Structure formats: C-alpha cells, structure tokens
C-alpha cells in the first residue's frame, strides 16, 4: 500500500482546449459568452480605428519637412517637433548655452538610474549626489568657468519641470514622514500644529498655493528682500506634496500592529530607534503604492506653475503652437508631450513595483 501510486497511475494529458494556443484563447478571450462578445466588439473597434490612425500617424505624415509641407498632406505634421525641439525642451535658456541644462539633466537622470539598486545605497552614493547636485547648480546658473550667468527667470522647459518635480518629491517625502509622526505625537502642541498644517494645505488647491507664493508672500517680506520666484514655486510644491504624503504615511503607521512596538521596546530600543529600525521601514513599505500615486501627481502638477508665469515644458509647447506657422499642429505636439510625461511616470511606477517586490518578505 505504501508504494507511490503516482507511478502506476496513467498520466493523461489535459484536454487540448486547456493548453497551448487554443487553451490560451479559450481561457483569456472566450471563456464565457459575454467575454466572447466583448472580444468580438473590441476586435471590431480596433479594426475600425487602427488603420486610419496608422495612416494618419505614419503613412500620410510629414516627419521633417517645413511647416508649409504640412498643408499639402492629410496626415500628421510631426515636423513641428524637430523644428521646435530646442525651444520646447530648453525654453528661454540662452541660445548656444543649451548644452548646460542638457548636461545637467543627463547627470540627474543617470544618477537616478544608477541609484535604483538598493545595494548601491551607501554613504559614498550620498556624496556623489551632493557633488552632482552642486555641479548641476553650477551648470544651470553659471557665473564661473567662463559660463555666462543665466538667471532663474530664464530656466524653463524640461529642465524646469524635472527640477521642480525632483526636488519637490525628494524634499516632500521626509517632510511628510515627519508630519505623519508629528500628527501621532503625544505632545498636544506638536500634534495640533501638524493637524492644522496638513488640513490647511489639503484644503486648498495647489494653484492657490502657487498664487500665494508668487503674489501674497512677497507682500509680507521687508522691502528690498526678494526670494526667487522659482524657489517660491518649489517651496509651494514641496509643502503641498508633503501634506498628502503625511496622510498616506500615517495610514501605514496605523497599520503597524502594537506587538511590533512592544517587541522593539522590550529589547530596550529608544523611541527613535524603534521608529527608524522597526516601524518606519515596514510602514513605508506598506504605503509604497499610494505614495507613488502622490509622487506621480506631484510630477504632473508641476505644469501648474504656468499660472505664475513660469515656463515648464507644457508651456513652452503651447508657446510654440502660438506661432501661426505651427498653429495647426497642436495634436502632434501634445501627443509628443504626452509620451514624454508617460515615459517618466511609467518609469517611476514600474520602479516602485520592482521595489515592492524586492522588499516583500512575507511568504
């Protein structure tokens, strides 16, 4: 009785409708009558929409010709992008100096990409960041090594978007964590201060914060003192994003079982050690998905700085389209812009999914 029964049992193959290509189709596209119906409707829609789209975008389109060439064709006028790329990307950065923001952006993006692996997170990487950020600052502002000074008012286009969103996220995250901890503090003064801050910021739109920072805030400053407009917008974005991060992190903190605090405390860990080593690593991991959601919207919300007359990449595109030569090409330009935004957002969200997987220790 004890001999293995599997060896004697006849090994039948599963039915042909369950495996291979047929199996896949059956399981994923035609497993019920309404799914079959949906499949057919979807296919019909694709058949109706795709050919004209492809014809417009690829076959009848103009890729590099002058604006005039676009009048003769029915297809997309992609040439709006190559002809205006310098202005769309770099905006009002002086002619001939565009290599500086280009290099700064390249430096920033490569550092971000390099930092993606957790095993590289060492103190040496921190120093590398510090040095690179200084170099980026020098590249953007100039004033030494024979580079002419470029006032921040001229910073625009993609470098401005990346800068506002990168520093917005990097500064808002720790600030948000501190606000979340403060909101759970036992000290009433700290607690109510954090609650008031979070609720006030969440109660107003980002646009109004930007307005305040650009119009109201200078009124309170003593005469003669001005704070740079880009910096003011940057601070508004940081303060705004931090309030949202704080609430998400608070949710993560509340999800932590009391036993984790008790176990850490009974080892004799101090409150700070308990938070840093036990509670926050777990709580922040739990809230990666909503945190990334907030960071993504912070990235896209930087386009709102247009209302205080900063020229981010969306605004430089709009300016391009106001040129009568290119007015008709707005669809093409906006598709390009959408793809640009999508590339950044998708990179962030897929990185966060990878991070979640790496940090997952539940089995």
């Amino acid at each position, binding site marked *: 009785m004890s001999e293995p029964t599997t060896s004697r049992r006849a090994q039948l193959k599963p039915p042909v409708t369950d495996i291979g290509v047929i199996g896949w189709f059956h399981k994923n596209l035609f497993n019920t009558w309404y799914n079959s119906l949906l499949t057919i409707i979807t296919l019909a829609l694709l058949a109706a929409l795709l050919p004209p789209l492809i014809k417009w975008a690829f076959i009848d389109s103009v890729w590099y010709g002058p604006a005039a060439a676009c009048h003769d064709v029915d297809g997309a006028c992609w040439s709006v992008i190559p002809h205006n790329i310098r202005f769309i990307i770099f905006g009002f950065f002086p002619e001939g100096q565009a290599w500086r923001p280009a290099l700064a952006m390249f430096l920033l993006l490569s550092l971000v990409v390099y930092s993606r692996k957790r095993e590289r997170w060492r103190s040496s990487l921190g120093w590398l960041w510090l040095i690179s950020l200084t170099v980026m600052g020098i590249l953007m502002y100039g004033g030494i090594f024979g580079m002419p000074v470029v006032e921040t008012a001229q910073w625009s286009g993609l470098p401005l978007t990346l800068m506002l969103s990168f520093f917005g996220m990097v500064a808002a995250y720790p600030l948000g964590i501190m606000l979340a901890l403060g909101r759970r503090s036992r000290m009433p003064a700290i607690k109510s201060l954090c609650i008031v801050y979070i609720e006030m910021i969440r109660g107003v739109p980002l646009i109004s914060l930007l307005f305040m920072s650009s119009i109201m805030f200078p009124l309170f400053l003593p005469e003669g003192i001005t704070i740079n407009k880009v910096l003011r917008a940057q601070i508004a974005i940081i303060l705004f994003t931090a309030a949202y991060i704080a609430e998400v992190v608070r949710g993560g903190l509340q999800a932590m079982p009391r036993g984790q605090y008790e*176990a850490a405390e009974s080892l*004799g860990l101090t409150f700070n050690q308990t938070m840093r080593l036990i509670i926050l690593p777990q709580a922040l991991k739990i809230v990666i998905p909503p945190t990334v959601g907030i960071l993504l919207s912070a990235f896209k919300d930087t386009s709102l700085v247009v209302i205080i007359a900063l020229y981010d990449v969306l605004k430089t595109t709009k300016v391009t389209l106001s040129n009568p030569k290119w007015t008709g090409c707005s669809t093409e330009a906006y598709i390009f812009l959408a793809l640009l935004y999508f590339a950044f957002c998708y990179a962030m969200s897929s990185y966060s999914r990878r991070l979640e997987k790496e940090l997952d220790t539940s089995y």
Partner: protein
Amino acid sequence: MNDRKFEKSSEKSVEPIVEIVGMHKWYGDFHVLSDINLKVQEREKIVICGPSGSGKSTLIRCINRLEEHQRGRIVVNGTELTNDIKNIEKVRAEVGMVFQHFNLFPHLTILENLTLGPIWVRKKPKKAAEETAMMYLEKVNIAEQAQKFPGQLSGGQQQRVAIARSLCMHPEVMLFDEPTSALDPEMIKEVLDVMIGLAEEGMTMLVVTHEMGFAKSVADRVLFMDDGEIVEQNRPDHFFDNPQHERTKLFLSQIL
C-alpha cells in the same frame, strides 16, 4: 533552591531581582491589579496561572513597563520603574520578553532580528553580535534558518527565535506571556523544551502559561491570580495537590 527561599524568609541577605510592593493598576476605572506584592529571587522560576482576565499578563507586562502601574513600587535589579525613560530602557534591556504572538520583525532576517538589540542597545560590534546570535540559534536548534525571514518559519520555530532574540541581550530575567498559546499542538513541545533547558541553566523566569505540566516539573513557585489579585502561591506539589482557596480549587478542577 528551595532552601534559599526558606533562608530568605528569616534574613534579608539576598536582594530579590524583581520586587513588587503594594502595586495597583487601573485601566480607566477598571481596577486590573490590586495590591500586588511579589519578590522574585535570582534563578527562581515562577509560573503564573489563573482564569483569563485575571491580570496575569498585565502583571508581567508591568515588570518591563509595557504597562504603567499607578501605585506601589516595582524594582528590577536595583532600578525602580518610574517615568524616567532612561531607567525604563535600562530595565527593558535587562529583562527579556517573549510574547504570545512572537512579534518577530518581519522585515528583518532571523539573524538580524537577533542582532538588532545587541548592536543598537548594547553597542556591540556587528561581528560579535552575529557570533552570539548564531550560538543562541544553535541552542534553540534553528541555526540553519538564520538567513530566512520570519514569515518563512513555522509558529514553533518563530517562538524559538523570539526566545533566542531575548537571550542575545543576556537578560537577568525572562518574562514569558503565554508563549505556547498561539501554537499548534505539535509545536508546543519544541518551545517548552527550550524553556525547560533555560530553566535548568538557572535563568530567572516568570511564565504566564496554561501548561500545567510545565508548572509541575519546572516551577519553584506557582502563583494563582484571580480578579487582579494574587490569591495563592505555593510550591507546585502543594499547589496542585493541596490548594488552599476555594477559587484555586475551582480553577484547578476546570483545567485539570
């Protein structure tokens, strides 16, 4: 050991390692612990039993200040528990605690769970802490799991890791809060075996448990608690064979 206990009653030469005098605790209006007096000598093993809600867990949680007492004194190894956080941290580092639900840190490996306290509280170098940790893991028969995460271990294994984690701090006293209550029956023995081994080595232990077999074979003293009071305490043979109070008799008749 019993000799020493009798000695103590006549002269006060040996300082108790845990001393609780006239301690009261309330949850809001609810009087959880009432006039608790308890002296625990070094190397003494005490089992605390009683019906649920009798305050036995609360009592041992007061000893490392996971719960705050409102009246009376608790002195652990010469340090009185007050609101002074430094004193509390000092006592916690000297008192090991094992929980019903293990409370391992799920984001750290088994080895990291064990070295965390020694490295951050005792300021031991990482390498020395890891060596000690491996020694204790071997002692609880789980060294081969050192690089795994708690979620990959069975309940019994996790509880043994939790015991080893406390031992790495070289505690003067170990508190066990129903250490086997959350375990499947076949895993209870492996945890109890580790605890018996510890007892034989002379660890001072306070154990809240329903394992009466463990109480009979290991305890120097059994405490019976009911309704927030220590109703009766005695050597295990007397306690089980000849209970003095009606409440103790009723409790024993229900569980034995």
